[in-house]
């Protein structure tokens, strides 16, 4: 604690789970936009990730409210908000938008996979086939006209999905931006800032997930697809960065009473996570992405630069959520002091938070096994030589055998 704070400001009530909630929701919006770039705007180069993007969006979407309701302590109480909504409750609005969006994503995935589901239901033996059979909901018509309808419905859902995704995340920003008592949150720019950082983080997530999936399946990564994501990430990154910086510059230039408190927050309380990770990460990613698109470097370097940029953006956006959610609570309403945030290990602490960050990937692996999203026809890469046993190498036997040469006589 520094300076003067009011007694009830000592405890930071919104902890790491509330940091994760806008982070995870943001990843969804971004991943969905990538899938829509293919389905709505016809960016053909993104085809290899179009289905993976939707599965990733669903996996993260399912975890986002878990962090939120775990924070409540009594998760079932979250339902009261939906049964008997208060028209002035921003959070109830989020509940409805979230549910609507979840339905859109589920439907889009179902229509996209319907043909495959019908085929898998016929091909796979035993309970796996039965499960796919159940998932087809009995709609087994895969005549060309039916598939044409599916395609059309996917298009419509993707079109409806874009504003929904934008609303979903803009709304998270709105929830913070509408808190007028908090100098660090209260700005009408907040929804836009949140939305853009969401898109940025989602594209970055997809870059990493796509790379990981290629690595695990030992397939060559589609370089053009990766570079297209690089390009979109770069463009959105510019907007996200400019908005985040402009907001603070605007506040500084206005130099209202609250500025001294905000200035102290970013220069003394959170300098590392604000300037170092949030802004520094974005700047570094900007240059790495730019370098990755330079024609004179080899594909593998370009790929690694893009991947590094993706990782940096993910870290930067997580830091941004932390700086907003926790930072906003550290400023005293007296504007004369700062509380201290202690991160616990358990409860709303590091370990469960890490769990919520890992859980989407576990779900994604499950979803990918259930609904393989791969559209590539490339053959499996040969194992790298390093992993292969060299046939010319002389066999020495293991250390164990050399130390204990039993049974060799």
């Amino acid at each position, binding site marked *: *604690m520094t300076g003067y*704070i*009011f*007694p*009830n*400001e*000592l405890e930071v009530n919104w902890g790491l789970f509330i940091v994760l909630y806008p982070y995870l929701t943001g990843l969804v919006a971004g991943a969905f936009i990538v899938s829509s770039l293919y389905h709505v705007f016809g960016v053909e180069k993104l085809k290899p990730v179009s289905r993976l993007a939707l599965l990733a969006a669903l996996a993260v979407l399912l975890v986002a409210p878990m962090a939120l309701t775990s924070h409540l302590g009594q998760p079932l109480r979250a*339902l009261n908000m939906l*049964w*008997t909504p*208060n028209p002035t409750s921003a959070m109830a609005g989020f509940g409805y938008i979230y549910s609507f969006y979840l*339905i859109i994503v589920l*439907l889009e995935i*179902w*229509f996209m996979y*319907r043909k495959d589901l019908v085929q898998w239901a016929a091909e796979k033996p035993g309970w796996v086939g039965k499960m796919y059979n159940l998932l087809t*909901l*009995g*709609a*087994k*018509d895969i005549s060309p*006209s*039916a598939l*044409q*309808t*599916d395609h*059309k*419905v996917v*298009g*419509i859902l993707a079109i409806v999905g874009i504003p929904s995704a934008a609303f979903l995340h803009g709304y998270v920003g709105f929830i913070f931006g509408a808190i007028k008592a908090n100098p660090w949150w209260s700005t009408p720019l907040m929804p836009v800032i949140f939305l853009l950082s969401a898109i940025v983080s989602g594209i970055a997530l997809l870059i990493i997930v796509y790379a990981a999936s290629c690595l695990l399946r030992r397939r060559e990564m589609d370089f053009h697809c990766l570079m297209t994501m690089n390009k979109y990430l770069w463009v959105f990154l510019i907007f996200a960065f400019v908005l985040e910086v402009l907001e603070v510059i605007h506040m500084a230039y206005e130099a209202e009473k609250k500025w001294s408190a905000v200035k102290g927050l970013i220069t003394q309380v959170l300098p590392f996570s604000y300037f170092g990770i949030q802004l520094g990460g974005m700047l570094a990613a900007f240059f790495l992405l730019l370098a990755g698109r330079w024609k004179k470097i080899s594909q593998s370097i370009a790929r690694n630069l893009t991947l590094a940029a993706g990782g940096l953006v993910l870290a930067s956006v997580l830091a941004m959520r932390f700086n907003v959610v926790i930072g906003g609570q550290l400023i005293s309403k007296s504007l004369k002091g700062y509380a201290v945030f202690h991160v616990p290990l358990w409860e709303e602490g590091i370990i469960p938070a890490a769990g919520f960050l890992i859980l989407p990937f576990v779900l994604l692996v499950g979803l990918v096994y259930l609904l393989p999203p791969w559209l590539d026809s490339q053959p499996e890469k040969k194992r790298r030589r390093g992993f292969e046993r060299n046939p010319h190498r002389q066999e020495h036997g293991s250390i164990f055998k050399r130390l204990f040469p039993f049974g060799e006589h």
Partner: protein
Amino acid sequence: MPIREDEKVFTQQAVVRVGLILASVLVVFFFARWLVTPESFGQYGRYRGDSIGEAAAREVSFAGDNTACKACHQEVFLAVSRNEHGKLNCQSCHGPAAKHANDTALEMPKVTGNAELCGPCHMETAGRNKRVATVKLQLHSGGVECTRCHDPHRPYGKLRG
């Protein structure tokens, strides 16, 4: 992409199935809502109307302000009203006194665990007003009851030896 009227999207098997499922989700939502929403919800505002009656029907446990206490315990009342604790309600430390005030044969429970009673005001915390004397409880008394030395009715008086 534009939908022509002659391509009937809404009669396709898959669309109909999904539509039925969505409709049933809505039905389940409204049924669950009907099931869990209390009957008197919204009677006066966005809360359970019955809760007002239920709260009013609960037994009164506090005896209001210090008037009732003063009637019998005049000496203590005068002593305490001359110092910093004079503005406190007797029941803040002594507990709810409605039963005792109505029937003095029923004795008040003894006040125990005064570290817990004094702590909320006298424990040192980062944001506390320095006009109130605050201590680090563990260092100050190490768990010994505050009343062993202090008299809460005369906080600035002589310490009890």
